[in-house]
Structure formats: C-alpha cells, structure tokens
C-alpha cells in the first residue's frame, strides 16, 4: 500500500491536517472566537495567515479548530459503523438462516430512505449535538459496511482453514474472531476510508444546512454557510474551509481506492 505514491501523499496530507488541528493553539497568536471590528475581511497575510472573516476572526485558527470537530465526528461515526456493521455482517454470514434474512431485510429498509433526509429529520428533532451527529452518520453507514463484510464472510467461511479449525473443535465464537475476522478486515478497512470521506461529506452538509453542532462550536460546513453571504466582499473565508472539505474527502477517497487496488490487483487493470 505504501508503495503507492498517491496513498502516501493522501496519508501525509491527512496527518498534516490532524497535527495542525491538534496544535493549532500554539500555531496562531489569535483566539479563534475573538471578534474584532477593526480586522474584518482581511486578505491572507497581514498578521493573519489565512485572513479574517466577517467578524474579524482568525480564519486559520477557526478552520483548524473546526477540523477537530468535523474529523472527530467523522472518525467516531465510522468506528461505530464499523463495530455494528462488522458484527451484523459476520453474524449474518456465519450463522445464515434467520439472522441472515433479518439483517438483509433491515439493510433493504434503511436503503429506502435517502440518508441525508433521515439525518436531517433525526438531528432536527433530537437535537444537533456532536454525539447525535456521530450516531446518525454512523448508523446510516452500517448497511454498507454490513453488506461488504457479509459478502466477504460468505467466501471466507468456506475456506479450508475455517473447516480445519472447526474439525478440531473450535467454538463458533473462536471461528468468527480468530479465523474469519482477520480475513475480512481488508475490505472493512477500504470501507472505513471511503466511509470517512462520506462522513465528512454528511457532516459538512448538515452543518451547512445549520443542523450541525450549534455555535460557538466551529465546523467547516457552518463556516462556509456563514461566510458565503459575504462572498462579494471577500471570498477567502469561504475558500479555505471549502478547500479543506474537498481535499479531505478527496484524500480519503483516493486512499480507499488505492487500498482496494493493492488488495485486489485484478481491479487495477480496469
């Protein structure tokens, strides 16, 4: 995987964003929440690395403080989706029978609603805290993970090493965790990377609609939404968060594609 130059660039970019966002308070002298009338709509430079927004706030500080929330929500939602999706997928693929039918039908039903519409509905009625957003985005991604895991389990469970363990008297739990799980992790990791891109898309979309964590919390989507009204005065406060949203999603998508290629060389030729 690391032999792929694209993947290395993506990982380096994502690590850079995470590192800067973790140490942002040491990297800029300005408080990201501090409103100042004298410094409105400053272009990049002039004491502010990326300029200032309509309230004279430091965009550099805000965009990387926002990265924590956006990436944090995305990461934990995918952890949630991964845990539930893998459990359901492995269970359905291993036990088959009723559990399999139940999980498959459940997936069919969730796929009847456009995900963003469900997310809007849930968030607007239950409240739009970071925890709610994480749960909604995560749960809406469960079907995809479960489906991919399930179809891999169907092939893995027929492999000889599983049969060998079974004939030596391994319990079902041992078969699932020791024999099957390590063999389905590869497609699950691909889904995780693609899912991160999806989660950033959802989170920023919801915050753009004003349905993300409420201010003073900073998210990329809300930054874009609020500064978009002043685009004719200065487009920099819209440009930076938009660019980071796009590049982050792009990085996760390329990473996912490259992981998939490295795991399935047959697809590479296509």
């Amino acid at each position, binding site marked *: 995987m690391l032999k792929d130059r694209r993947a290395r660039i993506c990982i380096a970019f994502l690590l850079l964003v995470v590192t800067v966002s973790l140490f942002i308070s040491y990297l800029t002298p300005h408080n990201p929440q501090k409103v100042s009338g004298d410094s409105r709509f400053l272009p990049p430079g002039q004491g502010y690395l990326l300029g200032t927004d309509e309230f004279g706030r430091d965009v550099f500080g805000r965009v990387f403080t926002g990265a924590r929330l956006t990436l944090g929500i995305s990461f934990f939602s995918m952890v949630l989706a991964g845990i539930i999706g893998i459990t359901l997928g492995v269970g359905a693929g291993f036990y088959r029978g009723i559990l399999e039918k139940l999980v498959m039908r459940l997936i069919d*039903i969730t796929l009847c609603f*456009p995900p963003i*519409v469900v997310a809007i509905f849930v968030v607007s009625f239950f409240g739009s805290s970071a925890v709610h957003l994480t749960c909604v985005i995560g749960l809406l991604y469960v079907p995809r993970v479960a489906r991919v895991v399930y179809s891999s389990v169907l092939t893995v469970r027929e492999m000889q090493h599983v049969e060998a363990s079974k004939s030596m008297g391994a319990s079902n739990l041992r078969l699932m965790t020791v024999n099957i799980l390590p063999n389905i992790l590869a497609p699950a990791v691909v889904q995780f990377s693609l899912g991160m891109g999806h989660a950033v898309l959802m989170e920023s*979309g919801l915050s753009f*609609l004003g349905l993300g964590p409420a201010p003073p919390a900073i998210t990329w989507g809300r930054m*874009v939404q609020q500064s978009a009204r002043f685009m004719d005065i200065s487009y920099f406060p819209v440009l930076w968060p938009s660019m980071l949203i796009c590049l982050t999603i792009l990085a996760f998508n390329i990473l996912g594609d490259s992981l998939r290629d490295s795991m399935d060389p047959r697809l590479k030729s*296509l």
Partner: protein
Amino acid sequence: MKWYFIRRLLVSFVLVWIVATLVFFSLHLLPGDPALVVLGGAEANPSPEAVAAMREKLGLNEPIFTQYLGWVKKAARGDLGKSLINERPVGPDLRLRLGRTLQLIIPATVLAIVVGIPMGVFAATHRNSIIDPILSSLALLGFSVPVFVMGILFVWFFGLYLKVLPASGYIPFRDNPVGFLKVMILPALTLSFGMLATVMRMTRSCVLEQLGADYVRTARSKGLAFKTVLYKHALRNALLPISTVIALQVGLMFGGSVLVESVYNWPGINSFLIMSINLRDYPVVQGILLLISVMFIGINLIADMGYALLDPKVRLN
C-alpha cells in the same frame, strides 16, 4: 417472468407499508409528549390548555393503534392531513413542491446520461492516451467536491464574478420560460455533477470489462469493425449495470437536492422539508418523508423491472 414481476411488486408494497409505519411512529419515537415537541418542547413552556388542544388536534387522545390505522387508511388514499401552521391540505402543496424539485432532477439526470456515457466510452477506448487519466481524475473530483461547495463556487463565478446568470431564486416556467431556464441552469448543473462522475466511471469500467470478453474477440476476428463491436455489442451489454447505477443515483438525488435547493433558494420539496421541520409542522414532515421514500422505492422497482426485461439471466434466477 410474470412471477418475478409479481414478487418484486409485492416486496415493494411491503416496503412502502414498512416505511409508512416508520414514518407514522417517528412522531411517537421522539422523547416526551409529541404535542409538547410540536409546540417547541419544554423550554417553550406552552400552557397546559395549548398542549391539550394540540393533543386533540393531532388525535393523540385516541388509542395509538386507532391513530395508526386511521393514518394509513388516509395516506393510502393520498390524504396526508392538514398543515398545523396554515390548515392547508398537505397533498397539493407537496405536488407543487415535488414538481419544482423534478424540474432540477430531470435536466440533471439527462445531462449526466448524455455527457457521462460518451465520456465513459471515450475513456475506455482511449486507455493508453493522456485523456483517460484526466477524465478519471475529474470523476474523482466529482465524487469528492460536496454539492454545496460546487454550488457556492458556481454562484460566485457565474453570479457574482461574471454576472451572467442569476445567483439564486425561482421563476415559474409558465410566467417566463427564458427566466426559468436562466435560474434553472446552475442548480441543475450542480446537482448533475456527482451523478455524471458516477455514470462516467461506471460506463468506463463496464465497457472495459465487456471489451475484454470472449465474444468481443470473436466478433473482431470474424472481421467486424471495432466501432460496430463497441456500439452494437460491448456498449449494449454494458448498459445494463449502468442503468442500475443511474436509477440508484436518481433516487439519491431526491436527498442530494436538499443542499442544492438550500444554496440556490430553490423552493422545492427539500427546502419545504427543512422549513416544515423548523416550524414543527408535523403532518407536512411526515408527508414529505413518505413521498420521498415512495419515490425512492418506485424508482428502484422500475429499474429492477427494466433490468429483468432486458436481461434474461435476472428473471430466470
């Protein structure tokens, strides 16, 4: 064949029923008294009389099963109740709003098909040239740029910088056809990008797969021109999986247009949803959720049936 259609139709009906049930009970799944939630929650502190009146209005005093049966019966006849805000029946408003959203979805879909499929075929047949990686990178960009970022970029470039197209708003076609086209172009273009990228990528990989198949080699070796083989054989076979992807994408557009409508102030079904959620106009919210899901199920049903009609392998299974 007949049995496949009947079974598929039954499954769709069951799905619609499940969705309707979920939509109905969603009000009751909310924490606390639904009447209180509709009135703005405990913080709004409505008077006990107001809560009692709202309970009466929403029919919450009846047993839940009676409420459920009543709602399903009415919904099946197309009666989705009245708005809590202005007492207007929900149905006609939904029809009007859905029409406006379709005015974006249909041009966006046509554009994605008309541009996406030729681009995909071109990329597949020019694999060793510089154009294929360029098109593939553009497709990746199409996936990765969120619609609202794309929308804002368009608003800035065409609306504020070049000043050639209106940045937002809506003009009914009947009042002013040219004005309608002008306001429609940007939102439809924005909406179509994600689908265009998906259709292109899918076309490229499907055509490539078909071109590597044995029957293509046979057709070529018996002397058929490459173009004939490409269009009459490979592309026709590739169109099957492509049509499934298109149907899925059209379904997803019903959700995706929510952001486009928000960027361009387009008064379609999704901006109606957001507005009604903010007003806690529950019958309207239920109606929209039901309508969007039914459209979603319907499109998938049509796609599956079309697939079965075209591909004997599916219906024999």
